[in-house]
């Protein structure tokens, strides 16, 4: 295990942070830019994963397992989220015959 940590620490922490931020931002932009619900899910997953990576990096740098344990939880939750999301998507599709989020405009004002 130690060598993995060492390998992780080859790259300085700032890089991880910057990379994760970039990843996160990409996810955000994806959410904002896309109108296809499916793609939006994926972008959200991207955001979550950037957080995962960040946590991993930190935990590696601090030799503290808590972060990595957290990651597992996040993965589980993410999985559940996707499951629910897709289910909802199906339901919505059945009623509106589209997965374009702009079609969701019955409730307003």
């Amino acid at each position, binding site marked *: 295990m130690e060598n993995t940590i060492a390998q992780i620490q080859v790259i300085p922490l700032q890089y991880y*942070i910057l990379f*994760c931020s970039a990843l*996160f931002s990409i*996810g*955000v932009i994806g*959410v904002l830019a896309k109108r296809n*619900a499916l793609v*939006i*899910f994926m972008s*959200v997953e991207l*955001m*979550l994963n*950037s*957080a995962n990576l*960040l*946590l991993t*990096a*930190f*935990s590696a740098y*601090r030799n*503290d397992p*808590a*972060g990595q*344990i*957290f990651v597992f*939880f*996040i993965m589980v*939750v993410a999985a*559940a*989220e996707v499951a*629910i*999301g897709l*289910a*909802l*998507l199906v*339901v*919505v599709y059945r*009623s*509106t015959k589209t997965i374009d*989020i702009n079609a*969701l405009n*019955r*409730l*307003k004002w």
Partner: protein
Amino acid sequence: MYAIITISIVAIIVLFFGAIQKKRPLLPIVYVGLTLAFILNLLEWNKSIHYYNEMYIADNFSIAFNAVLIFTTLLVFIFAPVYYKPVKRPLEDIYALILFALVGSLTMTGFGNLLMLFVGIETLSLSLYILAGSKKFDPNSNEAAMKYFLTGSFASGFLLFGIALLYGASGSLNLEEIKQYVILHQHNMPGMLNIGLLLVAIGMTFKIGAAPFHFWAPDVYEGSPTLITTFMATVGKVAAIAAFFRLMNSSFGEVESIWKITLTIFAIATILIGNLSAFYQDNVKRMFAYSGIAHAGYMLIAIIALKQDAAGVLLLYSISYTIATITAFAVLILVREETGTFSIKAFNGLAKHNPTEAFAMTIAMLSLAGIPPLVGFAAKYNLFISAIEQGNLLLVIVAIVGSMISVYFYIRPIVAMYANQPSATSAIDSSSNYKKQIILAAVLMILLGLIPGVIINLI
């Protein structure tokens, strides 16, 4: 802790009974289970036990809030049969999900570790996503669920990133250790922690549905099945605000400077937007959504005015808000059953046929509007006191102006009920214990209004 476990078990049992298509025992089980959980929860009073090396802390704060949450859920379940009268199938899934959501919220109130916070929030949210869409063939319900899901998951993304940054900065997920770290570095805060804190705060703000992250609330509340809306508006909101308060109180009390101004702006925006938007609503359900937003703003004041007894005030406020809202929704459900509309007209002349319901509704409205001597007023004014003692005069003035506006739209249903000619020809029949609950709630509102001290000095 035992409450959480009990409820989870009950939920599973419920699922099991559903699987074998038994309808009758479901609700009794739920009632018994919740009551049991309620008692178990109270048994830990004044012990402040720390479970699983501080993953979960059962101090008086969490216990008091848990009690509120469980009680509220119990009420929701009592209204359930009336709401689901037409449905034949056992509905075990819905019941179970509500219970799971409750578990999530209970976790949130007592988290001692950001991990638990996250898990709690997600447990709550995921269940709510499904519940929001639980009317499968109602496009409104679908849309509500979808919107809730999209925005919610997006927000939890930010929350998560924030937590990650906090972890990175402080090197721990444990509130206590984070606090130590913050106290150590409160003069040279690393920007990472700064940003992390803000992102977490944003995530929480979203969960309590406060401006500027409130946009989901009206649509979701309107679209979801009314019973679920009730649950969301009460349990969901209270749990989130309690968690938020716990987070700020136990870790970041020393570094107000970072988040105080932001939250103040949030609160002001929330109060004004909530009340003003509710002003013009003809759809009562949606109006309550906005009023809920406004009240979230008021609750934010408690966080801004962090003090020892701010917790007590927040508790009082949560109770007053919860009881009033749940009563209002209960009556709304009834009226909806009868007239088939959520419009204000549905209330016309209710007082003629159903004086009890009308009376309860009136009390609830006045309490929400903060008219003395009801609990709503007691809560508001204690809130204002604690804020004004921190020197937030401006905030208080805005809040008061807000409740000034709110009087108008809270009065409208009352006027409709009493002064208008009834649209329904006959009395709306409601089961006797339904009535009992409503009356109980009304009495509570008056009683607590007279002796709020009991609650405030509790924790």
